[in-house]
């Protein structure tokens, strides 16, 4: 039974696209067939983070409008063969997305894949609403920072009210993914703690992704962080989060960077 997952946040720049790529790659590596769908029409970026920007021929809007068939628009990942990308259109505007068209594409994707992961645009407008509309599961990406927490709270309210499941009187399974977390700063009282954010948002925790140089390094070269630096702290956080999405129960911790002998001797961090 295919699962539709939306990666959403309200606020921009918190790590939705990074998290979509990482969770998609982690689930695909675990043997599931996965498609990651970019809903950010006009500002697509998932193709870039996945390293597939030069392979885009057709996109989501082409499929919705009948200019291309779904298999023509799907891009298969070169590293993990069960991972696929459905890019957004860069030239069209978001009005080209229609509720009916998105519904049709999602049903077709559900027949082909185990996981359909929708990367939501920031904001609460049409694109974001359509990205979450068919979701069974939502990953709410939040930074330990007040504006991000506030926007997440708003998005959680919308997941409970505006989705297809909500309209049927059912619930979307919601999970918190706390990203850009810095445990040392939280300990010094300079940053909201995990428990603070959990208490305020009161949805279960899927994982804590620490702030790390490895995330930028991975996006620089166009690879999901779990593939580019699988031993890095953020990669391990995403790999564990993907296991939890598949039903495993694991204790949640903040992964730490593993330091090699040289960096221990010289006290320098190696990302």
């Amino acid at each position, binding site marked *: 039974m295919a699962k539709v997952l939306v990666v959403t946040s309200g606020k921009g720049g918190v790590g939705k696209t990074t998290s979509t790529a990482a969770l998609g790659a982690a689930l695909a590596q675990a043997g599931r067939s996965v498609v990651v769908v970019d809903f950010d029409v006009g500002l697509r970026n998932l193709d870039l983070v996945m390293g597939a920007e030069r392979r885009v021929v057709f996109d989501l809007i082409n499929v919705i409008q009948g200019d291309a068939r779904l298999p023509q628009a799907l891009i298969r990942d070169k590293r993990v063969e069960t991972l696929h990308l459905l890019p957004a259109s860069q030239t069209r505007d978001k009005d080209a997305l229609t509720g009916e068209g998105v519904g049709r594409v999602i049903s077709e994707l559900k027949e082909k894949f185990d996981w359909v992961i929708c990367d939501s645009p920031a904001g609460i407008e049409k694109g974001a609403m359509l990205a979450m509309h068919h979701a069974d599961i939502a990953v709410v990406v939040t930074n330990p920072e007040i504006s991000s927490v506030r926007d997440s*709270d708003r998005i*959680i309210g919308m997941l409970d009210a505006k989705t297809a499941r909500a309209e049927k009187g059912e619930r979307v399974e919601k999970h918190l993914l706390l990203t850009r977390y810095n445990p040392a700063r939280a300990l010094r009282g300079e940053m909201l703690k995990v428990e603070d954010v959990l208490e305020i948002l009161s949805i279960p925790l899927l994982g804590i992704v620490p702030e790390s140089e490895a995330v930028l390094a991975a996006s620089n070269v166009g690879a999901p962080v779990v593939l580019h630096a699988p031993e890095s702290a953020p990669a391990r956080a995403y790999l564990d989060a993907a296991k939890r999405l598949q039903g495993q129960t694991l204790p949640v911790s903040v992964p730490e960077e593993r330091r090699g002998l040289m960096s221990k001797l010289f006290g320098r961090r190696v990302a």
Partner: protein
Amino acid sequence: MNLFSFLKPRASAPVARERLQILLAHERAIAGGSDLVATLKEEILGVIAKHFPLEREKVQVKLDRGDAFSTLEIDIEVPSLSKVHAGTGSNGGGAKLAAP
């Protein structure tokens, strides 16, 4: 390190946490279960007003969303008890409600 901790500025995270809690309680009341919260507030005001004068802002109705259950918090500030003999105070409870 700890000897000098008094030199450090006060931790800012607790301030962030408190500001968020206050703000979100308010925003959830508006956005979330708007009808329910607004109706409750009007009806409570109606009942209390029968017994003594009360300002609108002295009645706070908050709905806190929870995973297993939500909490309805009703806070009513009444004039000094020497002026009225009615009951007083806040009435926080674990009312089980459908999520807004």
